[in-house]
């Protein structure tokens, strides 16, 4: 088990390297002179020259890359051009809200997707099955921003049930929960479909297996057979699916946060890009990419823990 986890961590090293290369590329490929861009429009030539030397822009690209690596590893991502705060402090303030949003999204959508998928599999071919499948095909075809806009329009504006701007506080407070409800519902809505679909086909596979027949032959109740012997084994591919969908989770969070003005990394990234705040944009994209890698790593490790057959 430990060797597997170690192997998994080793595989991530080239990927991490690629992510850092991307972050470096973002700073170097910026149109025009990066030093002028970093210094901002009002800077004097002395300041630009100082930044050029500080960034080492007069040195070979390879040297620049390694000094960039060194700075990133020491937690120095530069300063935001707009707020003049360090990028790291801006990112630290936004990580918590984004993590909360992702948890709040998964905590309702994954169980609901699993329940719907199991129902569809158990009553295969029935009206329930067709309805669940139709909803899941429709769900993966809906633009996430449309779901967000409809939530704002109906739940927020017309029925005045929930707030739809910003964050109310930590997740454990009432205001925090009320504010996160709409973004989490919108983001979760795109998850139910894929999870239900995968659960359905996975449960159908498992119900055909010998151990399920044995459980039935022992005279266990059908509910017990499905829950203990069917669903439990069927969940393994579902865990993998969540890893595969992590990209949608990250991308969806970017859109959802922007629409609901939710102060997370995604909104920070979009705002920084639209206002040409390159250091901040670079830092936010780095963190989003790291988060994506981390989710995939956790999923792979969970996968190994859940399925004793994964030993190779």
């Amino acid at each position: 088990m430990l060797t597997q986890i170690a192997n998994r961590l080793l595989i991530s090293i080239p990927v991490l390297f690629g992510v850092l290369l991307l972050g470096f590329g973002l700073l170097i490929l910026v149109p025009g002179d990066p030093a002028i861009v970093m210094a901002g429009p009002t800077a004097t030539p002395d300041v630009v020259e100082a930044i050029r030397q500080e960034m080492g822009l007069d040195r070979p690209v390879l040297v620049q890359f390694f000094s960039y690596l060194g700075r990133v590893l020491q937690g120095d991502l530069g300063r935001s051009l707009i707020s003049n705060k360090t990028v790291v402090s801006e990112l630290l303030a936004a990580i918590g809200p984004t993590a909360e949003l992702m948890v709040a999204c998964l905590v309702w959508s994954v169980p609901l997707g699993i329940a719907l998928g199991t129902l569809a599999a158990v009553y295969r071919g029935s009206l329930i099955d067709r309805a669940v499948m139709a909803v899941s095909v429709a769900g993966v075809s809906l633009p996430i921003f449309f779901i967000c806009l409809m939530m704002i329009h109906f739940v927020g504006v017309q029925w005045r049930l929930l707030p739809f701007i910003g964050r109310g506080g930590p997740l454990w407070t009432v205001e925090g929960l009320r504010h996160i409800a709409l973004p989490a519902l919108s983001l979760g809505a795109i998850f139910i479909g894929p999870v239900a679909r995968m659960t359905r086909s996975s449960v159908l596979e498992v119900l055909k297996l010998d151990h399920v027949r044995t459980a039935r032959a022992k005279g266990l109740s059908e509910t017990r057979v499905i829950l203990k012997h069917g669903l439990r084994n069927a969940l393994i591919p579902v865990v993998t699916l969540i890893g595969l969908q992590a990209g949608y989770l990250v991308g969806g969070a970017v859109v959802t946060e922007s629409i609901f003005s939710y102060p997370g990394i995604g909104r920070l990234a979009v705002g920084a890009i639209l206002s040409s705040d390159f250091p901040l944009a670079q830092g936010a994209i780095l963190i989003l990419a790291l988060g994506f890698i981390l989710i995939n790593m956790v999923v792979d490790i969970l996968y190994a823990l859940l399925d004793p057959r994964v030993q190779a």
Partner: protein
Amino acid sequence: MTTVEDAALDAPAPVQPWWQRLLRDPAALVAALVLLVIVLCAVFAPLIAPHDPYASSRAVMKPPAWSPRGDWTWPLGTDGQGRDMLSRLFYGTRLTLIIGVVSVGLGGVFGSLMGLLAAFRPGLDPWVMRIVDVLLSFPAILLGLALVAVSGPGAAPVVMALAIATIPDCARIARSIAVSVMKQEYIEAGRALGLSDGALFLRYLVRNCISSIMIFISLRFGQIILIGAALSFLGLGARPPTAELGMMAAQGRDFLLYAPHIAVIPSVLIFVIVLAANILGDALRDVLDPRLRS
């Protein structure tokens, strides 16, 4: 002992051509028709658009014609600047579809070539797969953010990001299909006949893999359209005043309370395009290549 007659009785019924089987699936048929109409509207936008999509008028935020305050001069109403929604939809669909087709096409060609080469030349395989692994760790929307950060908002960086995001999945699927084709006897026969590598690759490998790869790409099309629309919605794609469906929905956001049709109509159109593409892709896969089902 089986006689000749028995064998004839056991033989499977003659298989219908794929398009006949596809036509028997009502959902796929409707999806195909809907997509056809949408594509025709997009292609012939300049001919059928009732107004100039960029000309503003004083009739601002007119609701669609069927609502009480509506007017058949603007069948789907007007947007916040008094521009005709229907004409903008035709043009917007055009750009949305072009972005989707070009990026899926580019990514599909590059990705498939990588996968096919990896299967054809096993020496290349580990290299190709490492590149694929690294590419897979960048979700499409992040690639989009990164490219737009460097080059500024526009349709070109979005197309590039979506194309790059299509490459790794395509390469993986092309490789797995090509590996099984490479094991077939006709490949060995081709080699024995003394065919050059190029001929073997093009005439034997590519031809036998291409339909499965195309089906896989068609399954990706809907997702790519959605991500492209999301990037445009965030203001990272096509620049105003160009009409693009995602951006049109974003422009309607501020008028949601008074003129919901400005945001709702483009969003619903994106939904219909993606839904039809998904249904048709699923049906094509089931008919042509059930192996891809997993």
